């Protein structure tokens, strides 16, 4: 397969056989309880140097509490998949956790842009669609996915994609390598203790990434009876055997919202987005992340019951989320 053009990015690539062997040895087919605290989950599943991906957006159903826990545990040298990310990337860089970013969408704000310019974090440019396709390849156990995007651009030249001649048409086609993250973080509406999970609304690549990842940490607004899943199997987004840790984290997407549960807290989001200097960043981390014990402590001391109830009260659109 002659490569016509090859992007220059370093890629985190796992041979499909190596991934399969990891699954065989580490993923439990047994239905065992996986309920634990976010502290345990991150401590067990996230190691320095890991490649981390997450679903959905910073503002809706993002795994914010898990991201904060990773920062609190001061993981280092993470490589993150920045898809639909806004402030998570900034916080992970600010906390000194992330050193490399695969970019779909890097996130707004001067802080993250400056960190790139200063060389404090290395970026590799892809696209949202290319990263979703890479995740699909990872989930199907194949080494790559063909796409008809990236072609002709600098994005391609700076990505880790390759262009080859498609043998069926003879035309050039772009191949993006499979992505098998070390860790996938996902915040869901409902889960059972085994890891079966439901997401309401849309998602980026929840099932793809859960299937493709070595370790999956599930944060759930609500823990429900396992029988619920068997009674409505069409609603299951992620089956239990893909999942390594289940954490019950109500308001875990805060300051983002979760559909039909609570609205986003724009005031707090503005506070994060306003971070420009290193000093502001460290002050934010000190107050809201290092300065609290865990998610419950954060909600209790830094957000408060009244605010949480207000955000929940504003989530009046329920249609379709069941």
């Amino acid at each position, binding site marked *: 397969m002659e490569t016509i053009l090859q992007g220059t990015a370093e890629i985190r690539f796992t041979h499909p056989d190596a991934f399969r062997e990891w699954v065989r040895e580490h993923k439990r087919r047994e239905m065992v309880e996986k309920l634990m605290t976010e502290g345990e989950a991150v401590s067990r599943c996230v190691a320095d140097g890991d490649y981390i991906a997450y679903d*959905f*957006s910073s*503002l*809706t*159903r993002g795994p914010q509490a898990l991201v904060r826990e990773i920062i609190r545990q001061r993981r280092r040298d993470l490589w993150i998949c920045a898809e*639909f990310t806004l402030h998570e990337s900034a916080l992970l860089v600010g906390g000194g956790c992330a050193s490399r970013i695969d*970019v*779909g*969408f*890097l*996130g*707004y704000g001067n802080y*993250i*842009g*400056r960190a*790139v*310019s*200063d*060389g404090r974090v*290395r*970026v590799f*440019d892809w*696209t*949202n*669609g*290319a990263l*979703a*396709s890479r995740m*699909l390849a990872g989930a199907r156990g194949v080494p790559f996915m063909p796409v*008809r*995007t*990236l*072609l*002709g*651009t*600098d*994005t391609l030249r*700076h990505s880790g994609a390759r*262009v080859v001649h*498609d043998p069926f048409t003879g*035309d*050039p*086609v772009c191949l993006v390598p499979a992505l098998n993250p070390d860790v996938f973080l996902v915040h869901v509406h409902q889960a059972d203790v085994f890891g079966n999970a439901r997401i309401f*609304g*849309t*998602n*980026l*690549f*929840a099932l*793809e990434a859960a299937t493709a990842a070595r370790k999956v940490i599930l944060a759930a607004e609500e823990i429900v009876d396992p029988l619920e899943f068997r009674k409505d199997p069409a609603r299951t987004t992620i089956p239990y055997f893909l999942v390594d840790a289940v954490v019950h984290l109500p308001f875990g997407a805060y300051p983002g*919202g979760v*559909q*039909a549960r609570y*609205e*986003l807290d*724009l005031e707090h989001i503005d506070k994060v987005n306003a971070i420009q200097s290193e000093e502001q960043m460290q002050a934010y981390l000190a107050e809201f992340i290092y300065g609290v014990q865990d998610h419950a402590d954060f909600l209790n001391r830094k957000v408060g019951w009244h605010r949480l109830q207000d955000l929940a009260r504003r*989530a009046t*659109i329920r*249609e*379709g989320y069941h």
Partner: protein
Amino acid sequence: MIEFTDTEFMICTAARLLEDRKTVFVGWGMPQLVAMLAERLYTPSLVQIFEFGAIGPQSLIPFVRGTMGGPSNVYRSLQWSNMNWAFAYAGTGYVDYGMIGAAQIDTFGNVNSTLLGGTYERPARRFPGSGGGNEVASLCWRTILVMKHEPRRFVERLDFMTSPGYLDGPGGREKVGLPRGTGPWRVVTSKALFGFEEETKRLTLLGVLKGLSVPEVLDGMEFRPLATDLVEEIAPPADEELRVLREQIDPSGIVIRGEKMRAAR
């Protein structure tokens, strides 16, 4: 005289371009407002597609800031899906229009939304990058680019080509394997409207905001767009457009705020 912001002008101009009973790939922020305005005034049966998997929503207004994927944004969709499916529909040709922003463009409508200046490793300014922009520009039939009108944004050579326009000219897209018959169709700026000449695929001035002269609009650009003999006069935002935008869609002025402009009615 009518007063409006540069953003309002771009939104109104873009909204007038959309065709009813067609599909459009909608990006974050300004394109959401364009679709909302078009849906209310011009194209009630426009079908919106979002990269995060909302197919055909009837988004609620007012626009909720930061609600990409939130309940008001995806309200009453025809289908809730995911990113691979949203792009599959675009990849198979089901999406007529796409709308994306740009930091720089060149004469062939190639787009930079990644960085300005410096090197790739150490850019002087770093932007979010492609997001789904590259997919939209690669796969939708007609791409509409929306960009604030600053002459320095029209460059001979992009600092980085994030998303494909016509690349190096006619046949450029097909040569690299992009889908046949696609490409940038219009460029909406805060002062003018551009298209692309059929033969050369070069940027062509189609219209300028009423009250502005052609030289005023083109002054300072690194390259000179082609101009049709009859450059149209673009009407400023109409009262009804502004009313719907300001009262119904964005009453808190989150997106529509911007540089003040004025034009004769």
